[in-house]
């Protein structure tokens, strides 16, 4: 499918360029975040009845994984309320860049942190405490508030959105899987960018702020680091940037060679499996260990989790890459290219983990939502647990939805994800001239494990 502009009319494009709707939408989201944090703190501590848990972790999270990320990629980031206050504080303005007086130190993020390792660590940390975060309203409340304040703090110290780009655990997650979305923001003509004198998309102008993500749009080849904030649409003096549709997973045609991204994929894959085991599995000892934060059982659980996502999975993938190289004639080090063998295809081999990991998360979230979705209805009607019945659904009792369809759906998603990942694996292995079978074999094992965990 040839990419085409998603916003066809000039009127639609000019609407997209206006900041007002985005500020309004973000404000609504911010109000929702504040409400959620307050409800989490003062509402009932019963997670299934508290708005902060039921709406955020059952409703919003499922919507994010199942619909938003696969179809509009980082669309959520464009209205995410977490960095908003930091943005406003840093810019000294909420609407118009003209006349704004930037506050804060405006430092560049040190080079050592300009990668995804911090995000990886943040997500792993969040995952270690996920049992508490996903079930305790107050922990959710504190987590959300902490992220807002951390974003404000980083906005005052560093330039642009350091939090979103380098720290936000959800941002890394969304960014990774946004590569499969059939939507992208790209420049239409690289030549026009090269000729542009102002580079207003990066530096900002009277029409908009310089890219908050620190990305020069002409260099965008993948969705990972474009937060769809749409500022470049507003600043580009040449109308050279557009939002357009594309085939699913187009970004994966160009495999990443970054180990931090590879680890991100592996952490996400392993986390989905651990979440499925803890939150949906029947093993009470495992569940109790995940909940008993600080206990010996929890330390063991944390050790197993970290060993899986940082040791077993990456180690296996690295080994698969090495063995593929070793037993493939022509890629051994040669006199003319002695370093060929030294370069592990580890990061490239992690590329098919993107569709596979997304399938894992969709399967997990779908089950989680279909099983617990009825809690969302009751919590919306009585969000603070004060005995209200705002929309008449406070009395809805727990009732799994489409119980009979869950297993076939999960199977279809996981098998579909595996087939998709295998196709990506064949493509990337062809690009690096290595056999695809070992990598597909590697993908098969966690798929079977996830099928066993969920079904």
């Amino acid at each position: 499918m040839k990419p085409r502009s998603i916003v066809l009319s000039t009127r639609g494009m000019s609407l997209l360029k206006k900041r007002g709707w985005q500020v309004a939408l973000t404000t609504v989201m911010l109000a929702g975040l504040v409400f959620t944090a307050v409800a989490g703190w003062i509402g009932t501590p019963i997670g299934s009845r508290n708005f902060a848990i039921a709406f955020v972790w059952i409703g919003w999270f499922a919507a994010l994984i199942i619909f938003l990320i696969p179809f509009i990629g980082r669309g959520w980031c464009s209205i995410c309320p977490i960095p908003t206050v930091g943005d406003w504080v840093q810019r000294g303005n909420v609407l118009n860049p003209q006349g704004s007086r930037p506050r804060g130190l405006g430092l560049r993020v040190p080079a050592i942190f300009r990668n995804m390792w911090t995000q990886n660590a943040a997500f792993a940390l969040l995952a270690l405490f996920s049992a508490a975060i996903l079930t305790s309203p107050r922990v959710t409340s504190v987590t959300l508030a902490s992220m807002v304040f951390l974003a404000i703090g980083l906005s005052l110290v560093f330039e642009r959105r350091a939090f979103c780009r380098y720290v936000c655990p959800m941002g890394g997650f969304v960014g990774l899987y946004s590569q499969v979305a059939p939507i992208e923001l790209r420049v239409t003509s690289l030549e026009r960018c090269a000729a542009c004198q102002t580079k207003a998309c990066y530096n900002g102008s009277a029409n908009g702020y310089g890219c908050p993500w620190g990305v020069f749009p002409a260099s965008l080849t993948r969705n990972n680091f474009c937060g769809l904030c749409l500022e470049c649409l507003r600043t580009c003096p040449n109308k050279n940037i557009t939002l357009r549709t594309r085939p699913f997973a187009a970004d994966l045609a160009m495999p990443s060679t970054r180990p931090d991204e590879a680890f991100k994929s592996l952490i996400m894959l392993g986390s989905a499996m651990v979440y499925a085991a803890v939150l949906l599995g029947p093993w009470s000892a495992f569940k109790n260990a995940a909940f008993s934060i600080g206990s010996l059982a929890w330390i063991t659980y944390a050790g197993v989790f970290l060993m899986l996502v940082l040791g077993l999975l990456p180690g296996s993938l690295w080994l698969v890459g090495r063995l593929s190289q070793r037993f493939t004639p022509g890629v051994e080090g040669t006199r003319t290219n002695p370093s060929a063998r030294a370069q592990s295809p580890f990061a490239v081999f992690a590329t098919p983990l993107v569709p596979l990991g997304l399938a894992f998360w969709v399967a997990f979230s779908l089950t989680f939502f279909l099983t617990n979705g009825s809690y969302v209805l009751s919590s919306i009607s009585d969000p603070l647990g004060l005995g209200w019945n705002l929309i008449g659904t406070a009395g809805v009792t727990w009732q799994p939805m489409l119980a009979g369809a869950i297993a076939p759906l999960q199977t279809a998603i996981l098998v579909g994800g595996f087939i998709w990942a295998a196709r990506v694996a064949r493509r990337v292995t062809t690009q690096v001239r290595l056999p695809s079978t070992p990598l597909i074999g590697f993908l098969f094992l966690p798929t079977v494990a996830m099928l066993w965990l969920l079904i």
Partner: protein
Amino acid sequence: MRLREHAARLAILVVVAAAGLIPLAAWLRTPLVHARMAESGGWGPDVLHARAGKPLLVRLTSDDVVHGFAVGLSDAPAVDVLPGKVSQTWLEFDQPGTYTFYCTRWCGPNHWRMRGTIEVEGVKTEGTATVSPPLFQVLGIDLDQPHPAATTPAVVPDPQRGAQVAAEVAPPPTLSLDAYRSHSPADVWRTWRADASLSGLTDAALWDLVAYTYNSQLASADRDDAARLFAANCAACHGERGDGQGVFAEALVQSEPDSGADSSMGHSADATRPADFTDSEAMLGASPALLHGKILRGGMGSGMPMWGAILTDAQIWKLVNLLYTFQFDGESGP
């Protein structure tokens, strides 16, 4: 341009502040009584205030497991307090005073500690009943001292055989209510053993007669009510068979590291182990007045709660009568 910016800032401030303040205000204006397991704090608040003759709306929610709410010495039915949901009940008190509310569900090992008070203010009306001292005080019984039976039967007494014995003895020995309440079965057995008119009975037959006499104190009409009271309030610790092996018994003992192994009516240093009503030495040495006092006042430092503020005097006597059936009804209990 500046005007738009200021207007936007104001609008954002209003919307975001409203999102935080409206729920906060609603929360402050909706007082709830929170039920939590005793280990997590019990009732919160644990003191409610009311005025005599004026209805009080109590809205309850549980922060952990299913609890129940009831007011002691009241006929009002218990209200289930469900996790994350709000239950409500109206209370009205005729007389000022301090009333006790409590949990009616076996919510945890320290379930019985889930108590609170309702301070009712107002003016006492005429005709208020005077309170007489409990029998154990009148008789000068020291509840905290052991009262073991001087003698115990070699076999478990059988009230049915006792009924046959009573039919055969002419005239059968009788026990007034006062005498029953102030004497232990062992006391009665000894008195009757010394009675020349009963000298023809064997020791075992005399025990059967005592068993029949004590069991007869629990009218058949009261038996179900007594069993229900026992199941709701006592069985969690003392066990459904009265053997001190209730579901929370071990947890209570483990919570007190100094606990020993004895389980005889709190007579030993093992203060936290629930009393074993099948222990013949302890039970046959205990008078109904002693048992009544234990229930009424509680264990004073042992795990036994004070029930005087919750159960009526009639309910406590029913329970006392029921407790002897653990001795005299063998394995079956009540």
